[in-house]
């Protein structure tokens, strides 16, 4: 029997040459291989360090490394944005170790967003230190550091590697025990800078305000060295986070192999509904093709559920090809740490050839070189897309990334406008370090750490605003003012009540019965949609049914099942405007932004059959509501406006829901945020009623629709907001014009489809007509 062995080249040719997929490929971008450009280490680099680098095979640095080392040695703050695998760690390890070798009192703090990354970095740095043979202490300090080792880290750690959460709750509040570190702190390294955006970034900005405040107390003023994935505004983000001005090094001198990026839009399977072949199906078929051809491949999927589904399908495919099923592994945040370490080792030694991952792998953990990367659906940000893509071809040699678009509006917008991805306009990372919730929490922590002195401003917050917050806290009995100084005045330890990841609640634990074995952990919010009773919960490609959810104790008891369906939760949200008086109204329709309370509820779930995707049943869910205080941008269509349209009220409301969907899509693109960062609700302003969106139930019943003036809310999906609502208000005319263009120019023609109107019960053209009419009316109103 003749076996056809296909190579990566064959697969790229098939993909782009038209034989199999031709019309589906909307872009094929080839980045030619790039030769290395070298610089030189400074002449006066410590000879021991120079020798150790040579022993590790590093005779000369790449140009960007040389430039970064020179910048740091010149005493400047630095932000580095060269791509994955360009040797960023050397850029900070060399100047830090050089200084430690000269001045052994020198201390450095490395901050990585996750514990896994800290461990990875520790191994790399440790190897370099071993090579020097010098007595340089480097330690990771995180929740896993045993109490009796902590003293050694405090006293002997030249380089302390930690994460923001530990800095927040374990180091800063105990700074008097770390005085050796703070007195001698010369460098703060912040890697994966771009992950500190949104609410997490807003927290970290305040954390760094606290860090610098404590450094000032001990008389140190460390240099910041930040590394980021490619984003549009790295310097701005770094400045907002650190509060200092930084120099940029962005041009990589590292060599890269030839890389192919293919944007793939699955074929339309339902012309009338504008539905395309599923991204999951397309992804696993392509991945199976690559893996069975011997190409190491990573598949990124948007959610845990998708990871599990693709994993199940892929294992079926490799088994059919007479390959071992465990050649393909899942990798996601909920796996227990030792499970993850095993998979990473398998990738390095080749016993694992395919990995299906959520974005846990997106960050710079070294898993060796993979040849192909499949991105199943837009990952929510362009930076993420490129970082995921960077997993293929980390070293030299040819590599391939295939991005497969979903049917969703944002995916469709981007796949038909690939220039947005390839051009020079990726997203702006946004933080609001003055988010009220975040700011107040961190000022409490700061007051605990050191009393606020008279005339002390907190970071770049004005003295007036600082004082207002301090006075507010004093009026609540949290602080005590005496002679202009504000002292902490509660017996509780404030940092334990502040969670940097913006999720104050604890994770849920998934326990298998009858074995009574812990299978996984699920974060608080996800638990509402994935661990309700009767949910099918997927772990490692296996299905479990939730038998009982012990909500107060955060435990879900599941039993292994083999159903032919999976479940998906239905949620709905309501928005109430908190203070009308503080709202900036504009025009007759009252375009506004301000503070709101969003209440979300899981109402039920659907059962979806595997492979066919048909809906085979419903169930009810009773769980507590989730409440969120945030900011929103909104406008109201009065009954008078609706009645003036040539549509009945129900159709006009469908049109308004459709328009809100188009607005949501173009807003996420214009604001460069993930679609999940912006919430959407159509309802009344007192939150009495809201319309169904994306499979949710109608609250209050359709009969009450006559009673209210419907309002479209686009809200910042983070407590307190990260500044999206105000920005949207400012750019609303542009966003609305784009939305109208999207509605008018959609490939579905006149009928309307899920891509332009969002999910609806039917598409007969009337809702689309109403949406366009409402949009035009709104645009007129705004431009008047």
């Amino acid at each position: 029997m003749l076996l056809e062995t296909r190579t990566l080249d064959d697969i790229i040719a098939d993909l782009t040459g038209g034989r199999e997929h031709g019309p589906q490929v909307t872009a094929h971008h080839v980045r030619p291989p790039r030769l290395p450009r070298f610089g030189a280490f400074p002449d006066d680099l410590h000879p021991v360090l120079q020798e150790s680098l040579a022993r590790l095979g590093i005779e000369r640095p790449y140009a960007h490394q040389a430039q970064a080392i020179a910048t740091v040695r010149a005493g400047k703050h630095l932000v580095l944005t060269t791509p994955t695998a360009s040797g960023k760690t050397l850029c900070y390890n060399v100047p830090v170790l050089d200084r430690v070798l000269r001045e052994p009192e020198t201390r450095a703090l490395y901050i990585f967003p996750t514990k896994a990354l800290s461990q990875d970095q520790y191994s790399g740095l440790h190897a370099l230190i071993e090579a020097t043979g010098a007595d340089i202490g480097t330690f990771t300090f995180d929740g896993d550091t045993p109490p009796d080792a902590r003293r050694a880290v405090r006293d002997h750690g030249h380089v302390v590697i930690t994460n923001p959460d530990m800095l927040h709750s374990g180091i800063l509040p105990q700074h008097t025990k770390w005085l050796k570190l703070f007195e001698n702190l010369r460098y703060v390294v912040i890697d994966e800078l771009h992950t500190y955006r949104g609410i997490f970034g807003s927290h970290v900005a305040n954390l760094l305000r606290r860090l610098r405040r404590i450094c000032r107390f001990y008389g140190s003023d460390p240099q910041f060295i930040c590394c980021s994935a490619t984003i549009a505004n790295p310097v701005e983000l770094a400045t907002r986070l650190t509060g200092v001005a930084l120099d940029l090094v962005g041009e990589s001198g590292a060599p890269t192999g030839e890389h192919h990026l293919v944007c793939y839009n699955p074929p339309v399977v339902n012309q009338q509904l504008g539905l395309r072949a599923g991204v999951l199906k397309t992804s696993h078929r392509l991945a199976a093709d690559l893996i069975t051809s011997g190409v190491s491949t990573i598949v990124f999927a948007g959610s845990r559920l998708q990871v599990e589904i693709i994993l199940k399908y892929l294992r079926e495919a490799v088994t059919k090809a007479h390959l071992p099923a465990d050649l393909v592994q899942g990798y996601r945040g909920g796996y227990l740490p030792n499970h993850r370490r095993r998979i990473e080792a398998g990738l390095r030694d080749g016993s694992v050839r395919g990995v299906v991952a959520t974005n846990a792998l997106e960050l710079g953990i070294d898993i060796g070189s993979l040849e192909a990367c499949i991105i199943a659906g837009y990952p929510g940000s362009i930076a993420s897309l490129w970082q995921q893509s960077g997993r293929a071809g980390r070293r030299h040699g040819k590599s391939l990334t295939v991005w497969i678009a979903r049917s969703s509006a944002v995916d469709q917008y981007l796949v038909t406008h690939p220039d947005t991805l390839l051009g020079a306009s990726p997203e702006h990372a946004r933080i609001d370090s003055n988010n009220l919730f975040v700011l107040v929490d961190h000022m409490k922590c700061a007051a605990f750490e050191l009393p606020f002195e008279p005339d002390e401003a907190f970071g770049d917050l004005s003295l007036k605003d600082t004082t207002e917050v301090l006075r507010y806290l004093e009026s609540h009995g949290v602080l005590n003012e005496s002679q202009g100084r504000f002292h902490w005045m509660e017996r509780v330890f404030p940092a334990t009540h502040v969670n940097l990841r913006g999720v104050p609640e604890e994770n849920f634990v998934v326990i298998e019965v009858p074995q009574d074995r812990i299978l996984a952990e699920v974060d608080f919010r996800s638990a509402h949609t994935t661990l309700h009773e009767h949910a099918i919960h997927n772990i490692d490609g296996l299905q479990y049914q939730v038998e009982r959810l012990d909500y107060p104790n955060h435990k879900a008891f599941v039993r292994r099942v083999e159903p032919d369906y999976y479940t998906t939760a239905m949620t709905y949200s309501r928005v109430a405007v908190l203070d009308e008086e503080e709202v900036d109204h504009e025009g007759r329709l009252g375009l506004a932004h301000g503070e709101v309370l969003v209440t979300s509820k899981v109402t039920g779930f659907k059962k979806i059959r595997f492979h066919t995707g048909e809906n085979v049943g419903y169930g009810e869910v009773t769980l507590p509501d989730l409440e969120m205080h945030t900011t929103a941008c909104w406008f109201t269509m009065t009954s008078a406006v609706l009645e003036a349209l040539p549509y009945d009220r129900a159709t006009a409301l469908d049109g308004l829901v459709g328009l809100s969907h188009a607005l949501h899509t173009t807003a996420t693109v214009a604001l460069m945020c993930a679609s999940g960062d912006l919430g959407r609700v159509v309802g009344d302003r007192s939150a009495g009623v809201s319309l169904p969106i994306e499979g949710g139930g109608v609250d209050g019943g359709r009969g009450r629709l006559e009673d209210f003036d419907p309002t479209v809310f686009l809200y910042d999906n983070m407590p307190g907001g990260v500044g999206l609502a105000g920005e949207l208000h400012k750019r609303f005319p542009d966003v609305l014009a784009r939305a109208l263009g999207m509605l008018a120019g959609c490939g579905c023609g006149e009928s309307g489809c899920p891509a332009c109107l969002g999910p609806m019960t039917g598409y007969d053209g009337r809702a689309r007509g109403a949406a366009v009419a409402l949009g035009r009316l709104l645009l007129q109103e705004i431009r008047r």
Partner: protein
Amino acid sequence: MKGLGARLRRTLGEAGDASSAAAPTPEPPAPGLDLDGLARHARLQARMSRWAEANRDLPALEETVGGQARTTPHGDAWVVRRPHSAVSWHGERRLGALFERTCDHLAGLVGDARLEGFDPSKALFLDIEASGLDHGAGTLAFLIGLGYLDGDDVVVEQLLLREPNDEQAQLHLLVEALERHPFLVSFNGKSYDLTVLQSRLVLNRFYTSRECDLKLRPHLDLLHVSRNLYKGLWEDTRLGTLERRALGFERVDDIPGSLVPTCWYHWLRSGNPEPLAAVVEHNLYDVLSMVTLADRVAHDSDLGTGEAAERDAAAAVNLARLLLRRKDAEGAARVLEPLARSAVDAALAPVLAALAEARRRLGDAAGEREALERLVEASPRDLQGLTRLAMVLERARELDAALAVARRAHEVLPTSALGQRIARLEARLARAREG
């Protein structure tokens, strides 16, 4: 952007009446509390609710707490200084007794060479009351209680913060007191009081990383010694229990330690010094109890007092075990020998076990065997005693006896080590018979 203050109040809520919200209240009485306990709780509750009464004329600090301001280069500190005659009593013990005692044995007992030459008259007894129960940088010692000998008096000097800004002056006085007294005595100071004070000294720039020696000073932590000496004697080894059991001192309407931070905050908010006075009194007792507890510890652990025979068995065993841990087998034997002479009964077993160990370390094989034989007589199922005895007999080549004892031990707990020992003894016996 609107004023931050207005947004704060709208989003996070208006302040309530902070002063009344934080008034201290005792925890609800534990279920099953006796009549005395309930009455105590009721009195405490009445006292505390009086503190929170609105519209009262508040008494002055001087009247309620006593003391006066003392000037330092860092401003004024409030000091409550109370001399207690060395011949006065605290519970069943005389305050000055400690200072008439030689305490040379304490360094060995604690196992800390820094305490060589420990002299109570050069010691500073230290106990703080803090604004929180953890060690974080935001926890301050609003009251530092110091005790020391001054002539014929035991002086308790309490350095009290009237407000947080007094702290530099307060710490200045602490540093002066530390300079005058080379030794420190505390109750749980190693993990609490000194940790908090070291943090305060750093925060107020008295200490840097080069000069930061509070925790390196010669320091006798009575909690650790008491745990070693009195474990198992009474319900626990908390200071309150030791006061009742070891010092014969009973506090009346004392404020519970868990409410101390709340009392401080209540003073800051309301300006009412009564809760502060309650804490000052609580702290005074802590310091005086430390002085008498140190006396009791020094007495109970002194082998030269000739009172060894009066020790009860449990206390003697504790002391002997501690001495064994400090490699003082001779001392341990001296503590135990007088007790071991009494008739064998079950209560004597721990004495005999410790004595056997002491004799073994002294190289007294016959003595060890004698103690072990009496031990397994007193406590026939004592696994360790049987195992040790089997070893001793085997070493003495009394193989039949060793085998019998090993089998007894194996019946108590069939461990694999004992199984091996039995097999080996049987093999040796078989060889002996053949040979």
